[in-house]
């Protein structure tokens, strides 16, 4: 039987290659993601190993707030430096200060800020502890001098001796570029923008004063990392200090990056999984059609004595061969994809020094196993059906599809949908662990349920969709409709593949529209400010960016402005859970926001007070005067009192916890305004106000002034960017589905050769034949789209409902985008039919008529 399997595979090479494409694409995406993330991981592992190469121990504060949104750590007193230096075995100890700093290039534009962070360091004098090497000029000797990384210097066309502005949390200041440095072998560490100051200047800018972020320690030769760590720790006070070895520090940093990467990895793998799921439908369908077409061959095998089992195994063997070949090709394509993405990242300034890509055994094994298993599993049903072909089928002319078992299908399909919906609801609306898993399995069950119902729905759907075609395209349309109806199972399975992609596209579209509507409503209700100053660039320029509080101060001083307040954002531990804390000037907040204060005096919010939203107050039973345990990096754990309760919490697209700017200054190390909200003085026109404010903003090249409408649009633009990314990732699943349509059409046309010949013989033109096949494809595509949109709308509604407490208050189905999806699907149907239609039209009439 094995020989037969291989022979049959080789005989149908082309047909199988088409099927294989469905697997190849999914596996390529999957292995590409894995290779890329392994490569990035290796790159960052090397980077950190390099950075901390000379560091034997590191001293830092024990006070760290570790939340799902990030980590922030307190500072240590500078006095510890002298203590550490005095420890026997310490060769060098260097203070560490880190903060936001962004240099401005010679074109007046801020350098970087488009992903990798912009950071300020103090220049480290000890060569063992400094990974930067000066390539031009010299280290900063005076407080007015800086060194910047070569990558940023090249970007901004900056040379030694230039005077440039650097943006920090202090007022913008000009510095003399004393030197340019490379980071090990790279121009910059992973594309980050690094500005280095004297330690005194760094302390002044960061507001650290007589505190440090940490102390790097190099041990004398012969002293191990563990030993120096123990000695340093013993010399320091027991409380507040933590000493770790250089190796641990390296590992910690590597792990942090790995965590971030694995998030990104998992997100991409989900899309690869979707593509593979769609691939399953395509494979299932291809094998079903092939088995049906070869039923005579199967019957012959049975007639000469093959058991049903042997027939099944032969089909499964074929699928395994297809799967193995396809996943091998997919793996190769994945490696190429990773290489391409790597150079793309490099083009975006994310410098990845390591040459080549990392292909681990794990990647190879999982690509081959997943690809093969997916193919074989998808072929199980068709293979079992092949075994059921009775030997007498040999005598029958054509395989006829068994009539759909209406009852059974509707029960199973509806059952799956109900179970899926229940799981979905369970995952979305309850607080169980692993909510994502429930949602995922629920969605899967819904997809399969709809796919099972498909064949029942084909008839009415084709009638409706085919009606206008029959009307306007005459006989071509009629034939298209009838052919789509001909084998409901085939049409349904083909459409189901597309349904999955469209459902997710529809869901994302609805979710984004609902989010945008919710933002618009929230802004309309809560925002009184005329203008907002925002960081420039994608996603607001990244997390570590912002403006000096000087900006808000200067803007507030303008006569055209009645009030301006910056807001700052930090993460803190509130009553045992990590939360965002939003800080603003309580006396000014009322002018720029309508917080809908319910109780307490928000304007009088003290540095030791906190304001909470009504929602969390209700959840926790807090009232004005209630004590809350708050842990912040600089102040550690303390008890604060609720001083106000406001109505517009996260539920209304705002925030649940607010403190005063004064409170923020005492709680967090870095003081950057994330945004500045401005209300104009009475009688000042928008234009006059803008002109006056722009003058101040000019000094901050990383800032952008927006009025309410522009601000809303920029929020929408951020959502759009994210949505477009998701669309791009879903495109693969849709492409696989379209290949499935093309494949089904090609196989069906092969089956209908004689009929096509007849049509041509009685006078159907090539053009009419092509248009008939195109219409058939459009019916399949639109059927899949209709199913997908129905499922997508349901998903969208469920998720929007579930996120109501997170500020998604509106549910919106954007009609224009839905129309676009439908039109694009129809066009995609036309495109998928291109090659099959061309092949059909090229058939030789006589040969077709007389074909078996």
């Amino acid at each position, binding site marked *: 039987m094995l020989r037969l399997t291989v022979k049959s595979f080789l005989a149908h090479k082309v047909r199988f290659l088409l099927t294989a494409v469905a697997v190849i694409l999914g596996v390529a995406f999957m292995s590409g993601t894995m290779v890329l993330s392994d490569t990035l991981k290796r790159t960052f592992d090397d980077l950190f190993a390099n950075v901390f190469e000379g560091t034997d121990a590191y001293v830092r504060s024990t006070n760290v707030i570790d939340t799902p949104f990030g980590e922030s750590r307190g500072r240590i007193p500078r006095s510890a430096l002298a203590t550490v230096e005095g420890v026997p075995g310490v060769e060098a100890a260097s203070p560490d200060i880190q903060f936001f700093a962004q240099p401005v290039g010679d074109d007046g534009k801020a350098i970087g800020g488009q992903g990798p962070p912009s950071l300020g360091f103090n220049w480290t004098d000890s060569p063992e502890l400094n990974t930067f090497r000066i390539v031009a000029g010299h280290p900063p000797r005076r407080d007015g001098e800086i060194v910047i990384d070569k990558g940023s210097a090249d970007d901004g066309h900056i040379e030694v001796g230039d005077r440039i502005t650097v943006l920090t949390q202090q007022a913008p200041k000009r510095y003399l570029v004393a030197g340019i440095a490379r980071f090990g072998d790279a121009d910059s560490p992973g594309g980050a923008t690094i500005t280095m100051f004297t330690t005194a200047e760094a302390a002044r800018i960061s507001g650290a004063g007589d505190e440090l972020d940490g102390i790097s320690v190099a041990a004398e030769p012969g002293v191990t990392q563990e030993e120096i760590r123990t000695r340093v720790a013993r010399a320091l006070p027991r409380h507040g200090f933590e000493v770790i070895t250089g190796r641990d520090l390296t590992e910690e940093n590597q792990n942090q990056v790995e965590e971030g990467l694995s998030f990104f990895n998992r997100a991409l793998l989900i899309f690869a999984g979707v593509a593979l799921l769609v691939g399953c439908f395509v494979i299932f369908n291809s094998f079903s059609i092939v088995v049906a077409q070869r039923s005579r061959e199967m019957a012959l095998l049975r007639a000469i004595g093959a058991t049903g089992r042997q027939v099944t195994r032969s089909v499964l063997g074929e699928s395994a061969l297809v799967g193995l070949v396809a996943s091998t090709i997919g793996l190769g394509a994945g490696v190429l994809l990773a290489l391409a993405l790597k150079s793309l990242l490099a083009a975006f300034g994310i410098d990845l020094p390591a040459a080549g890509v990392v292909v681990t055994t794990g990647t190879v094994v999982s690509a081959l196993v997943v690809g093969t298993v997916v193919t074989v599993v998808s072929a199980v049903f068709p293979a079992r059906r092949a075994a059921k072909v009775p030997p007498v089928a040999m005598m029958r002319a054509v395989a006829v599809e068994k009539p759909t078992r209406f009852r059974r299908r509707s029960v199973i399909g509806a059952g799956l949908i109900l179970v899926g919906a229940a799981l979905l609801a369970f995952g979305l609306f309850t607080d169980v662990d692993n909510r994502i898993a429930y949602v995922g399995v629920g969605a899967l069950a819904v997809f399969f349920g709809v796919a099972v119902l498909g064949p029942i729905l084909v008839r009415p759907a084709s009638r409706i969709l085919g009606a206008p075609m029959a009307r306007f395209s005459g*006989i071509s349309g009629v*034939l298209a409709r009838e052919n789509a109806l001909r084998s409901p199972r085939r049409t349904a399975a083909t459409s189901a593949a597309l349904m999955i992609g469209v459902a997710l596209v529809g869901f994302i579209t609805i979710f984004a529209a609902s989010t945008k509507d919710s933002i618009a409503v929230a802004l309309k209700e809560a925002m009184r400010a005329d203008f907002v100053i925002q960081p420039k660039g994608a996603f607001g320029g990244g997390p570590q960016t912002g403006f000096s509080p000087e900006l808000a101060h200067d803007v507030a001083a303008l006569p055209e402005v009645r009030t301006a307040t910056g807001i700052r954002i930090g993460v803190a531990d509130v009553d045992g859970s990590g939360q965002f804390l939003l800080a603003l000037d309580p006396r000014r907040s009322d002018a720029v926001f309508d917080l809908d204060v319910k109780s307490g005096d928000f304007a009088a919010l003290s540095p030791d007070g906190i304001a909470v939203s009504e929602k969390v107050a209700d959840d926790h039973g807090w009232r004005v005067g209630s004590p809350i345990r708050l842990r912040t990096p600089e102040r550690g754990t303390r008890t604060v009192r609720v001083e106000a309760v406001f109505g517009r919490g996260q539920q209304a697209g705002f925030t649940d916890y607010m403190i005063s700017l004064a409170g923020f200054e005492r709680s967090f190390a870095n003081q950057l305004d994330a945004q500045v909200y401005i209300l104009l003085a009475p009688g000042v026109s928008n234009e006059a106000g803008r002109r006056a404010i722009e003058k101040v903003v000019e000094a901050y090249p990383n800032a952008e002034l927006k009025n309410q409408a522009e601000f809303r649009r920029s929020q929408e633009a951020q959502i759009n960017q994210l949505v477009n990314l998701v669309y791009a990732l879903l495109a693969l699943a849709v492409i696989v589905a379209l290949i499935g349509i093309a494949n089904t059409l090609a196989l069906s046309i092969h089956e209908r050769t004689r009929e096509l010949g*007849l049509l041509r*013989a*009685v*006078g159907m033109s090539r053009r*009419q034949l092509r248009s008939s096949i195109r219409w058939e494809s459009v019916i399949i595509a639109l059927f899949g789209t209709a199913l997908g949109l129905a499922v997508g709308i349901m998903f969208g509604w469920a998720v929007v409902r579930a996120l109501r407490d997170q500020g998604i208050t509106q549910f919106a189905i954007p009609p224009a985008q839905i129309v676009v999806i439908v039109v694009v699907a129809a066009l995609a149907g036309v495109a998928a039919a291109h090659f099959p239609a061309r092949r059909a039209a090229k058939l030789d009439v006589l040969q077709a008529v007389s074909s078996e």
Partner: protein
Amino acid sequence: MNPAVTTEATAVSSRAVDVTKIFGEGDNAVRALDRVSVEFASGEFTGIMGPSGSGKSTLLHCLAGLDRITSGQVFLGDVEISACNEKRLTLIRRDRIGFVFQAYNLVPTLTALENITLPLALAGRKPEKGWLDTIVDTMGLRDRLSHRPSELSGGQQQRVAVARALVSRPAVIFADEPTGNLDSRSGAEILGFMRRAVDDLGQTVVMVTHDPGAAGQSDRVVFLGDGRIVDEMRSPTPDAILDRMKQLSE
């Protein structure tokens, strides 16, 4: 015979002039038709006979514009179809020629009526009510019109095929062993219908057949042998045909 038909019979509807058809090249070349010249008069029912492989189907295909000829000319009325491009040929087949194959004549997804009117639908034309009714009644298909081919007997299917061939009032209908797959009763029925199409409806029919009885229904029989016209017979009887066939195969 009806005098009106006799006058029409003087016009030639389909004509082959020196037609040669060679399949394949070099050593594998098969000369299926060898300088065949033949005419088919309007309003006449012609049978084509000959041993298997003698080129009957090939001749029919060439006359119907389904296949290209190697040399010579093929005319339909005044139009030289051997000089037409594929697009023209398709239109000629649709509007001027009817074709009945031995089997698989119908589109399985369409009803009997839709199959009958298929050439008109392809042309985007509406059927003439009177003509369609005449055909349907002549073929005895009135109560079968909404059925799909799979719901029709073999004889009914061939009747639908003949009706389809008639619907566009073609200049000529070509039939390649239309009764080959039928039992003798259904076969006789089909032959009767074709005879009536010629006699009552004034159509022209050219039919390939192996059955002397079937050929006996025709006005004239043309004998092919080895790609050449070897003989012909007017107003044939089955016995005379059988005799001639025996001679030919000797």
